[in-house]
């Protein structure tokens, strides 16, 4: 019994370093994806039909195809561009690095999903509030800052939390598609490597699952706290929809 526990504990530690890579991919991809998504959502909401169609098309393409294919596709495209662009520009070391391409593809992917969330939320911003703000003589930036943005983010936050967890989970696919440098392996590829060594599927995969689960719970907790802050103006118990574990299951 003690031996099993000791084994388990040793195995737990093995995944700490690989977990950093999943966290790295998530943390680097999210901020860029967030900002881009906001722009694309406004683009899709734009009155200019060209901009609107373009943004809608991008969202559709990246939501309509698997990340697994996107990763393969982008690596091979970046590779094809390497001799003509990246090398002459001297940025090959950056552009071809898995730690760059991984987040890049995840950013494109999450931008599409997040933009759709923001787009949906944007359309629920009350017209009356917008009109009132304009009647006060606010500039369009002021309208955005005081009316559009607070409304959008509050509506979008639960769905966005969900998206963040999805992003964290989809980082598991990255090292199935990109070359591995040295011992830079994420949780999934580490689990697979260990499995191929001793065929102990239950131990390795359940430990990997445990790590994913634990970090997902941390994400839910942190984002739940932020949500409480966002909703702090609403009356305490009544109006506040509580952010539960997995409020929205679909991506």
């Amino acid at each position, binding site marked *: 019994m003690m031996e099993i526990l000791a084994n388990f504990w040793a195995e737990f530690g093995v995944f700490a370093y690989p977990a950093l890579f999943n966290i790295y991919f998530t943390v680097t991809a999210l901020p860029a994806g967030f900002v881009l998504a906001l722009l694309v959502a406004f683009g899709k909401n734009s009155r200019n039909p060209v901009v609107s169609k373009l943004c809608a098309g991008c969202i559709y393409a990246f939501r309509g195809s698997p990340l697994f294919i996107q990763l393969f596709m982008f690596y091979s495209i970046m590779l094809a561009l390497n001799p003509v662009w990246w090398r002459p520009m001297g940025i090959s070391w950056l552009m071809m690095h898995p730690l760059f391409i991984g987040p890049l593809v995840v950013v494109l992917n999450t931008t599409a999903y997040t933009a759709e969330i923001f787009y949906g939320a944007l359309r629920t911003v009350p017209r009356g509030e917008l009109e009132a703000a304009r009647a006060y003589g606010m500039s369009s930036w002021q309208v955005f800052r005081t009316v559009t943005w607070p409304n959008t983010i509050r509506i979008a936050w639960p769905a966005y939390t969900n998206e963040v967890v999805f992003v964290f989970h989809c980082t598991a696919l990255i090292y199935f598609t990109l070359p591995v440098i*040295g011992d830079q392996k994420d949780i999934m590829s580490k689990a697979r490597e260990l499995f191929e060594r001793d065929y102990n599927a239950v131990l390795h995969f359940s430990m990997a699952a445990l790590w994913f689960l634990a970090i997902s719970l941390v994400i839910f907790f942190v984002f739940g706290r932020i949500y409480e802050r966002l909703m702090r103006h609403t009356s305490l118990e009544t109006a506040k929809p509580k952010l539960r574990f997995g409020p929205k299951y679909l991506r």
Partner: protein
Amino acid sequence: MKKVIIAAAALAALSTAAQAQTVRVGTEGAYAPWNFVNDAGELAGYEIDLANAICEHVGLECEIVQNDWDSIIPNLLAGNYDVIMAGMSITEERMQTINFTQDYFPPDPSKFVAAAGADFDFDNLSGVRIAVQSNTIQAAYAQENFGADNTILSFATPDQTIADLAAGNVDLILADGSFLDPVVTNSGGAIAFVGPDVLIGGGVGGGVRKEDTELLATLDAALDALKADGTVDALRAQWFDGVEPAYTE
């Protein structure tokens, strides 16, 4: 990961095949000219021909099973196939888990290739990006000798190393000479051999489970006979340009 895909159920030419015992041969199918999928969509190459020759000689039925390189030894042990013929070098480390037949390709030096015109100081190599296939003798060698000062990129298939070298994403590939020869020859001068040859590992042999001593003896006897009658050298000459006969006088 276990799997049996019969990409090409290569039958021995024996008409009694129906009663014959089947030997399943595991191969990677992505390592030209050793074993690969040709444009007709069939497994082909030196080892496929050799496997069929062996089976014909001993009157067994051959079934070629394609399996990814990374899991090729675990799946042999698990029993998904009986012999590995996948350009696998005979090494001490592998000998601890599996047995090897006698070599059917003599020790073949590993070589470096780079884009034509590139030059490296191999005595103190540093800051260079070296591509290898993961879980190969070259991967271990590169990690041990160059890992400290250089970047080692490991790829799942050998094709990917070539693609990345051609696109300038890596500076060097370390791989078997026999695999790199046709690449250099047919690259139109874009890819060239550089640096010293490195002798890692022994010749290439078939890998069998340790308990299958009978099969090992059968295969060794068959290889003896096929080497003596010149079949092995003829096949080598057919698939590898400019190799010297190694097993016949």
